[in-house]
């Protein structure tokens, strides 16, 4: 019998996804936050953040192509794609975000050759010139989507899509803001389930879930006991079990500065009469991936600000192994945080949730360090 603890977050993302597909909604897979969700949210299309939660074993097949020295996210996605578990995706959109994603695109094209598979060039800078170029790239993507899916993407429906997106983000922000309080009505793992659903379901499927959660939160106690409030800094985390493993050891994940988290993904996109420029500016200036060459200071500021806003006791940086940009960035973040006297743990990981025992040992030791 469901308790009050889990009623609010008791929804099945997979079931809702199935319902949407049965309803003739068209999932368009995207694999990086630099892909504009707004463009995939017109007509019957909806954006589906590609994940490999369905992966049940290893990545033996994908390793033949991508090799074992590549990021396990890309290997896991290729593995389940080769296993036909992502057949429901009707179009694939990649961003040339990093070495691994570019090669995932190349291998997917070679092995599976989906009907619609597109790679979007993304600048490594966020100034006006880069935004202008990127808005042209978004225009080209828009034209390709229109042509393939026979959907008219115009300024009006794009403005509507941005509006819908912003409304969703604002609703989520109301929930996310609870995490700044002394007492939280949900755990980090629960919140992560919500975020995962947000990135993989149509907006209309999310609305009732969010409303339901918002209604129940005022009377909800914090579902877990904890000794420290932590911030997770990482790239893509799709399994809420990973957050759960951390929280099982006395940490409460109150802030999530990772690609599939809320910080800073819940920022809203500004709207003018040039939606392509707006989208380009939003994507380049809001995302804080270390792939960007000119946002280093902003990335540090965001972490600093998050630590203050969310009353953080310690930071866990969890790069996926073999990611060079996160590997080098982590070294610098550790030095930045240590200089400020913030306890920090480097928890290198695989994309798939595994080695729970090792995570527990490291996190327990970290919490003890924080409490000293």
């Amino acid at each position, binding site marked *: 019998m469901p308790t009050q603890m889990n009623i609010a977050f008791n929804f099945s993302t997979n079931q809702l996804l199935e319902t949407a597909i049965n309803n003739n909604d068209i999932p368009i897979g995207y694999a990086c936050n630099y892909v504009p969700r707004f463009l995939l949210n017109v007509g019957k299309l909806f954006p589906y953040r590609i994940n490999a939660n369905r992966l049940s074993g290893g990545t033996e097949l994908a390793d*033949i*192509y*991508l*090799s074992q*020295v*590549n*990021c396990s996210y*890309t290997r896991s996605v290729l593995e389940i794609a080769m296993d036909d578990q992502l057949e429901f995706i009707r179009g694939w959109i990649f961003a*040339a975000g*990093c*070495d*691994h994603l*570019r*090669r*995932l695109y*190349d*291998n997917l*094209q*070679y092995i599976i050759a989906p009907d619609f598979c597109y*790679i979007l*060039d*993304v*600048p*490594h*800078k966020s100034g006006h*010139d*880069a935004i202008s*170029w990127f808005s*042209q*790239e978004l225009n*080209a993507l828009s034209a390709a989507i229109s042509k393939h899916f026979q959907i008219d993407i115009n300024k009006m429906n794009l403005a509507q899509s941005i509006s819908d997106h912003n409304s969703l983000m604002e609703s989520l922000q109301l929930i996310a803001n609870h995490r700044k309080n002394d007492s939280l009505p949900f755990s980090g793992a629960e919140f992560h389930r919500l975020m995962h659903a947000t990135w993989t379901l149509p907006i209309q499927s999310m609305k009732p879930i969010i409303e339901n959660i918002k209604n129940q939160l005022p009377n909800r106690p914090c579902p877990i006991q904890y000794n420290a409030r932590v911030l997770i800094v990482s790239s893509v985390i799709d399994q809420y079990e990973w957050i759960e493993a951390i929280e099982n050891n006395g940490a409460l994940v109150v802030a999530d500065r990772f690609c599939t988290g809320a910080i800073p993904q819940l920022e809203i996109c500004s709207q003018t009469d040039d939606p392509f420029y707006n989208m380009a500016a939003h994507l380049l200036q809001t995302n804080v991936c*270390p*792939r960007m*060459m*000119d946002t*280093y200071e902003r990335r540090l500021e965001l972490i600093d600000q998050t630590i203050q806003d969310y009353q953080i006791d310690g930071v866990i940086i969890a*790069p996926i*192994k*073999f*990611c*060079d*940009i996160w*590997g*080098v*960035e*982590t*070294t*610098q973040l*550790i*030095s930045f945080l240590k200089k400020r006297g913030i306890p920090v743990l*480097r928890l*290198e990981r695989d994309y798939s949730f595994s080695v729970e025992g090792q995570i527990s040992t490291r996190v327990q030791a970290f919490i003890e360090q924080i409490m000293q």
Partner: protein
Amino acid sequence: MGIFSQIQDQMVFYQSWIKNYQNILRMPLDHGPIQTLQNLYKYPWLWQLAKVNRLLTIVTNGRQGNYRKANAAVVEKIVPNLVHLLDNLVKDTDRLVLHEDMVPPEILFAMGLKTWMSELLGILMPIVDSHSVEKYIDIAENAGIPPDVCSLPKSTMGIMLNKEVPPVKAILTSNSPCDGGMASYQLIKNKLNIPMFQLDVPYNFYNERATDYFANELKRMIKWLEKHTPGKMDWDHLRVICEERNKMAAHELELWESIRQRPAPLAAEAIYLSHLWCFNVMPGDPSGTELFEYLTKLANENIQKNIAAVPNEKYRTVLWNPPLLHFIDLFSWAEQQYGLTLIMDSMSYNRQPFIDTSTNDSMLKGLAHIIMTGPMARHTRGPAQNYFDDMFYLYTYFDLDMILVAGHIGCKNTAALNGILREKCRNKGIPLLIIDYDLSDPRVVSHDGIIQQLDRFMENIVIRS
């Protein structure tokens, strides 16, 4: 081989050896003993570079006649250029700019700036002494850089972290060739605490949007350099540099035509080391043009006399990815062991040899193309199609028998294409060896380990078939 030829070959070696030491000794003579001692203390890698004549031994070993002369000439070109670069440690240091190897220095030269290529030491030192960058790799890893990052940026970061970098005043870099290389520059900037400009190279540069964006990036870079350094753009000087580079490129194309001959009149270092140095470190230098003119002359002489660079040439290959820095002797060994001749390599092969010097904009567009289509930008970062198209084009154009890939363990971009490559080669019936090794660190796979891989491949695949 007659006794006279043997004596001649020995003479080539010793003449070159003496000339190189004369050039090396120029540094302490020019700088004076105190400054030289200070430099040796401050920059311990100078001890390694002082052994640069080892390179002569490596590249002339087992080579005869014009092939030997050609390889010796390449080293003779490198040594004085290197000594000239080392002058930058003490002279005009307010003009000294640290630049990444993927950013060719033509514009910097035209602005009257002095250059120090960040990766120069990481490339040159293991060539001269296999183990010489291990220390710097360890420093980077001990500072927290993951061991799986490419050893070239790791050794570069190690040098910076150990404060052994020349007194540079600004940094110029790009997002090429890989994430590891790109990410390393933020750390370098933090360490040196000097201004930095990063060129944003598009991923897919085959459209007007990307070309325009990148040509404008170069303009922004020039403005930035004018603001942050004493350098001023001299377009006429840039034109002279580009025209000289074009002349050098024309000779190189002629040289490439000559090595299409079977057997090849020249091979290996005469082709790739000359390109690596002249086009990346000192483009626009008239002595580079002279070197390529000389190499072409030697190649043509060999063709006329029907002399092969490798007397028993049996197999011809391309080497994909950068040459095995800590084991460049591999090919002189393979020539003698199997008659295996290295004809061309991915680092030398360029699709944009000439720069249109008619206007300032056309020069910038030409340079933009050279950077965007540079081998590692085009193959390592760029779409997979670039990688395979070039590889199979070279296979046919140079009448090759196999493909060797230097499978550097730190290169995730190319490792991710190995699966496709194996299948494509199998379908085309092309023998393929992907050598497992690390670019600069012989502790990962030893020289014996590399030889063993090549031995097995040659004996089981090539000779048997």
